[in-house]
């Protein structure tokens, strides 16, 4: 069975039989540039706005270590680590921290698939002339990411910027890539400050 077409939402056809229909003929809309088209609780079209930009933190550690009884110096491939201090650590449950070298110290982070921004700072006592370079290291794929970061002599920024786009679960450390002279490792009474943040983009 067919019907004669008279109108759709009060829009009548022209002589050729064509009806021009737009969204505002279905529901009353007065959009501004950048607005999004959504639906309301009745299922009707409704204008909506973009959500506020967010940069959720997957993992954050901001702390000063308490003490270190060892005498080891930094060396190439040494993973920077810190003594666990749960009160200053946030984890959304998706990041698995584990030890670097020493038990009860954290120096490895396992991240799931997704995109991340890594923002980290590290400080530690060094002797008069020592300094190290370190860099974010993917221990799963043996790849480095982000800028080399200088710590020790020279008052450098000591800050890591890195972007990660991970297809699967990977583990990361901050590994020493070079050093000059002998750099003391987290000596007692010289409290290293650590800031490690993994922001999740997707």
């Amino acid at each position, binding site marked *: 069975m067919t019907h004669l*077409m008279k109108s759709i939402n009060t829009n009548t056809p022209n002589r050729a039989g064509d009806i021009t229909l737009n969204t505002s003929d279905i529901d009353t809309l007065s959009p501004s540039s950048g607005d999004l088209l959504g639906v309301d609780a009745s299922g009707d079209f409704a204008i909506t706005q973009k959500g506020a930009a967010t940069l959720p933190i997957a993992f954050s550690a901001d702390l000063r270590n308490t003490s270190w009884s060892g005498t080891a110096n930094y060396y190439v491939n040494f993973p920077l680590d810190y003594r666990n201090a749960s009160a200053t650590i946030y984890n959304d449950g998706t990041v698995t921290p584990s030890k670097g070298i020493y038990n009860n110290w954290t120096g490895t982070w396992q991240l799931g698939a997704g995109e991340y921004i890594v923002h980290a700072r590290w400080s530690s006592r060094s002797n008069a002339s020592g300094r190290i370079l370190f860099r974010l290291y993917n221990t799963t794929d043996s790849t480095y990411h982000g800028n080399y970061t200088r710590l020790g002599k020279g008052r450098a920024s000591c*800050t890591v*910027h890195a972007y990660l786009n991970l297809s699967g679960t990977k583990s990361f450390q901050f590994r020493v890539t070079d050093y000059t002279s002998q750099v003391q490792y987290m000596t007692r009474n010289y409290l290293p400050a650590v800031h490690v943040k993994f922001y999740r983009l997707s």
Partner: protein
Amino acid sequence: MSHNQFKVGTAEPDLDGDVTVSISNLSDVTVTSPSAGQVLEWSGSAWTNQAVSGGTAQFMLVGQGESNAYSNATTATNITDGATLYLYDTSPVNTISGATISKVGSTDWVQSVTLPAGNYIMMATYAVEFSATGDMSFHFQDSSNNVISGLGAIGENLTAIENSSGYIQSYRQFSSSTTVKLCCELPDNVDTVANQGNTPSEQSSIMFWKV
């Protein structure tokens, strides 16, 4: 007047006279190569399909540890007061809609970035080689040479700016598109461009978050 041959937008009836109208048949909707998860955004004249934006912070990262001699960035002999500080990156990450990155000639040395109007957190870490005990400050500035960030300072002789941070982390609101570059301030015993080697390339990085 009524008709039995009609179209609704671009949708025509089948042999039974039935018309199946999809959203793209509406005259103010333009859907091009849609993909799952997209939304319709008002362009000012039509609803067009777009990837969802605004839910995740947009950001730009330049400087990811690659190696290249600083002498490839500039023909200058020295890094002087007010000089542009270049950053090396063959694949900078840029998810800020409308932002652009300007490189020096055919090199991968970045000399400036242009950010669309909006609110930004601007961050920078920089490293240079010194010929003797010295120091160097750095800041972001716009194309009119206005300083638009806090000051970062590196080196071992920071008497003039004692205890300055070695890192920039500044918030800035731009009411219009703004070109931003990192610049040197008050260098003291900064080694020559030729002697910088790969240090600025490997150890420097800037990042912008649109918030």
